[in-house]
């Protein structure tokens, strides 16, 4: 039997279409739905107003993360609005029988960290959440993407959303990454090449040696950032690395169910000759430690380079100049040596154990620069425990850093972790938009290694100069 070669994305997408609407979207079935306190309350209100129930409460999982404090989580939340949202999540999930890992629960953490680490995220699934970084879960060979609150209400009430099928893009990166080059550098490099809108309308498959050799944590970092070039999501074919990561996790299949699932997961790869609408090839050797200099994630460069001149910056000159003016930077400047006031390591992009290992590798035996305020925020309580168990906490403490409690924290600064106006932050998070980390804050996105180098030197520093 000869079949048309299919991409991994096609295989998963097509097997979840309940109904095709002519000249309209697909009615698309959702296997796993994550919710958090910020984008779900109005969806629950919608259910109330329509008098509709949650169709499959067992397929939705709630965690509180966006709006939570990262210190003193045992105390009542001070901000009444935040407290009210957290309470609403608790009430709504209890009412409809939805699993809820609220503040204080040992499973609590950032939604895109706790899903995978508890085995909720599996290959071949369709996964959505009212959060654009849901693309993270694509690291497992799942189709995962962010949705709006109207769509959260759709999934709660019918386990489906209405989606036109995106176009397909494949990004290949082959070769070997050099010393000090992390998955975050790979993704910032790709986005700098494609621009912040370069993959809009597409779903991206990442392929090639660099991703095959990457850990699951690294793959999650890459897929996480897919949205930052406009892609709906990113996906990586599951392999032995994926299966080894999943095996034994709490909600992963066990015994005969594992064997059955594994046999299916092994079919989840792009067939030879399958067609993509667009394809890119990059060479690992061209990738340096990256840092952003502007106000969208596409404005990134190798750390030893110079800020591009406006005519090479892509887009309109006025928008480019507005961006540099906001940052207080000028064309042709070097980034090395620029003063850093804040360092943030954490978020759904770089809040996993591997990220803290990398950070500790640089700070070990050094001291935090005196003028730097550092927020070290694990992605979950499980990551927090790993940091303690592996002795990383001791290294951090010795170097003058404090470990905080899990949450989204300074990535979007909904809680008190805000960078003050005009101050510079090197951040391992995903967005350097104006005011993203607090009104007037200036963000430079980078890897955990670059963040660590900035934290100990107080200026933008090439981490390779601090590595043995």
């Amino acid at each position, binding site marked *: 039997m000869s079949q048309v070669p299919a991409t991994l994305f096609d295989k998963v997408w097509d097997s979840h279409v309940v109904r095709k609407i*002519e000249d309209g979207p697909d009615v698309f079935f959702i296997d796993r739905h994550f919710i958090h306190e910020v984008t779900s309350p109005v969806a629950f209100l919608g259910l109330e107003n329509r008098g509709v129930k949650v*169709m499959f409460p067992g397929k939705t999982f709630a965690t509180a993360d966006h709006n939570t404090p990262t210190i003193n989580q045992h105390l009542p939340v001070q901000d009444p609005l935040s407290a009210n949202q957290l309470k609403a999540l608790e009430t709504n999930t209890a009412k409809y029988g939805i699993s809820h890992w609220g503040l204080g629960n040992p499973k609590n953490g950032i939604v895109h960290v706790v899903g995978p680490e508890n085995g909720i995220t599996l290959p071949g699934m369709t996964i959505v959440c009212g959060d654009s970084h849901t693309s993270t879960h694509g690291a497992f060979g799942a189709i995962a993407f962010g949705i709006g609150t109207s769509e959260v209400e759709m999934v709660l009430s019918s386990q489906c959303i209405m989606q036109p099928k995106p176009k397909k893009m494949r990004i290949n990166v082959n070769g070997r990454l050099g010393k000090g080059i992390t998955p975050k550098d790979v993704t910032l490099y790709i986005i700098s090449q494609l621009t912040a809108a370069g993959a809009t309308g597409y779903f991206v498959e990442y392929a090639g040696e660099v991703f095959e050799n990457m850990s699951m944590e690294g793959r999650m970092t890459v897929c996480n950032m897919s949205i930052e070039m406009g892609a709906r999501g990113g996906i990586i074919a599951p392999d032995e690395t994926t299966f080894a990561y999943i095996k034994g996790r709490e909600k992963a299949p066990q015994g005969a169910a594992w064997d059955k699932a594994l046999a299916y997961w092994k079919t989840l790869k792009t067939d030879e000759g399958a067609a993509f609408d667009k394809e890119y090839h990059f060479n690992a050797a061209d990738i340096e430690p990256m840092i952003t200099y502007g106000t969208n994630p596409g404005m990134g460069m190798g750390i030893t380079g110079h800020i591009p001149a406006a005519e090479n910056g892509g887009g309109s000159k006025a928008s480019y100049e507005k961006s540099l003016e906001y940052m207080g930077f000028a064309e042709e400047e070097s980034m090395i040596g620029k003063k850093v006031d804040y360092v943030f390591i954490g978020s759904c992009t770089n809040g996993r154990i591997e990220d803290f290992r990398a950070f500790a590798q640089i700070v070990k035996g050094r001291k935090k620069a005196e003028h730097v305020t550092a927020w070290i925020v694990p992605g979950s309580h499980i990551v927090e425990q790993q940091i303690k168990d592996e002795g990383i906490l001791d290294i951090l403490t010795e170097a003058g850093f404090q470990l905080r409690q899990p949450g989204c924290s300074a990535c979007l600064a909904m809680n008190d972790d805000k960078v003050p106006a005009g101050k510079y932050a090197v951040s391992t998070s995903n967005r350097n938009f104006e005011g993203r980390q607090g009104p007037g804050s200036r963000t430079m996105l980078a890897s955990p290694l670059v963040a660590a180098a900035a934290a100990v030197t107080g200026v933008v520093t090439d981490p390779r100069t601090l590595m043995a």
Partner: protein
Amino acid sequence: MAYDKFTVLKSTAVPMPIENVDTDQIIPARFLKATERKGFGDNLFRDWRFNNDDTPKQDFVLNNPIYSGKILVAGKNFGSGSSREHAAWAIYDYGFRCVVSSFFADIFKNNSLNIGILPVTVTPAFLDKIFTAIEADPKAELTVDLDKQSITIDATGESESFDINSYKKHNLMNGFDDIDYLQAMKEEIAAFAEKSLY
């Protein structure tokens, strides 16, 4: 949530010739703490629109009384970043019913359509013509005709057609939403779920 039907919109427009306007600018995260869909228009473009002491920034277009209308015209890649539907709510709540750009971020586009805002994608050249027309006369009107899928600069008569799938068009013209559609096919969904691996 029900929204007003969209058929023909004839209105002056507010020009925002800035590229990559992300949803953090449209509504900063610190204003996402509500549990109801109310009052988001007050914080639309908060940090571009107001100083730290809450006084209006005079040079921002929404604070310039010569510009008004139900149509927002923006530079390419409008609505990038966060999936927060609050961005679309803020635009709707402020009084816009249509956003025109040469390029929209996906999630923002979906969110807009789901709440009754029409995102109109025009060519870069036509976008420039619209900006030029508004610059020449801030009271220049645009006509957006959803049924005909056309956008016209009334003063010059220049017009361009835009794409929208017929399902979404039908919904917008009638004020229907996807949840109504999905509720009507729940048996089919339940049967599908029976066969699901997960």
